[in-house]
C-alpha cells in the first residue's frame, strides 16, 4: 500500500501587503500621539511580549491574517529576534475590542446649541483623533483602554478645536451587574 504524507494546506491569504507596510510605518513612527492603529505591547517578566493592534482597517481580514500581518510588520520594523519574542499577536477592530471590554473609556461631545463649534467639526476632529466609524451608520466612537489615554485625547481635541473645552466629556463603561459579580 502506498505511504502518503501530507501537511495541512494553508488557505489562500488575501492581499495584506498594503496593511503590513502601513503598520511598519506606524511602528517606526515612535512619536505619534493619536489616531489608529492603537498598538498595545505588554512585556511579561519572561521577556515574552503580547501585542494587540486595534485598527478598523482589519475589518476585511480574518483573525489569522491579522495576526500574520502583525508578525510580518514587527519582523520588518524590529527584526526577527524581536518578532520571536511576541508570544501572542491579536488584531481587533475598535468595535471588536470594545465588545471584549478592552476599550472602556469613551471621549464624546456633549454638544449643545450655541456651542462655539459645530457637531460636524467635533465629528471630524474625533475621526482625526482615531474614532471608529464601524459602530453603525453616522456613528463615530472615540474609545481608549485607560482614562489617561482618554484625557490626553480630550486635550488634543480642545487644542484642535479652540473653544471646545466644555464640549468634551469622558464616559466609562461599567458593565452589567452580572459582569461585576463575576470579577
Amino acid at each position, binding site marked *: 500500500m502506498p505511504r502518503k504524507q501530507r501537511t*495541512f494546506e494553508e*488557505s489562500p491569504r488575501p492581499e495584506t501587503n498594503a496593511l503590513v507596510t502601513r503598520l511598519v510605518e506606524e511602528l517606526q513612527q515612535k512619536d505619534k500621539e493619536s489616531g489608529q492603529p492603537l498598538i*498595545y505591547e*505588554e512585556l*511579561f*517578566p*519572561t521577556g*515574552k511580549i*503580547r501585542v*494587540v493592534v486595534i485598527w478598523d482597517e482589519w475589518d476585511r481580514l*480574518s*483573525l*489569522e491574517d491579522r*495576526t500574520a500581518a502583525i*508578525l510580518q510588520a514587527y519582523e520588518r520594523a524590529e527584526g526577527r529576534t524581536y*518578532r*520571536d519574542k*511576541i*508570544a*501572542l*499577536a*491579536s488584531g*481587533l477592530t475598535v468595535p*471588536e*475590542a470594545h*465588545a*471584549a*471590554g*478592552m476599550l472602556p473609556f469613551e471621549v464624546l461631545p456633549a454638544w449643545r446649541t450655541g456651542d462655539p463649534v459645530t457637531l460636524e467639526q467635533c465629528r471630524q476632529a474625533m475621526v482625526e483623533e482615531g474614532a471608529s466609524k464601524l459602530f453603525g451608520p453616522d456613528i463615530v466612537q472615540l474609545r481608549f483602554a485607560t482614562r489617561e489615554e482618554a484625557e490626553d485625547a480630550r486635550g488634543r481635541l480642545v487644542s484642535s478645536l479652540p473653544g471646545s473645552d466644555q464640549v468634551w466629556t469622558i464616559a466609562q463603561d461599567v458593565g*452589567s451587574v452580572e*459582569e461585576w459579580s*463575576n*470579577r
Partner: protein
Amino acid sequence: MPKRLLDRCQPDSIREFRAAARQRFDDGLALSVAGQRTGAIYLWGYTAEMTLRAAYLSFIGLGETTPITQKEHLRPAVNQGRLLGVAWPPQGEFHNVRAWAELLVTQRASTPDAAYSPSFGGDVQRYGQRIGELWREFLRYHRNYAYAFEVRQVREAAEWFLVNSHAL
C-alpha cells in the same frame, strides 16, 4: 436496572474532557461522512474546546480527575485571560475556543521556561482563531448548511488540537 445515560456521567475533569474530546471528534467524522456538515462542525468545536480547557487546567496544576466547576475553575480561567489581555467577550465566554487558545499561549508565555516555541504557539493561536471564526455553541439552534471548505478547516483544526494535545 441499568443507570440512565445522564446518571452514567462522570464529574467534569481533565481526564473526562480529553476522553470526550476524542469521542466527539469521532462522532463528527461519522456525521461528516454522512454529509451532515454542520453537525460535524458543531461536534468538532467541542473537541477543540475540551482539549484546550484540559490543557490549560492541567498546565496550572489541576489534577487529572479533580472535579471541574464553573465557579472554581472556569470563571477564574476567563478572568485570568482578561487579566493577561486576551480579548474575551462575555457572550458565550466559556465556549470561546479562540480565547481558550490565546489564554493557553499567554499563560505559558508569562510563566518562566514554559513558553511555546514561536512556531508552535503560532499554530495554537491560528487553529483557535480558525475554529473561533467558524464555530459557536449556538450553531445548534440554526439550520445553516456548512460549506465543504468550512468542514475541512474545522476538522483540520480540531484534529490538530487532538494530535498535539500531549504538547499543549
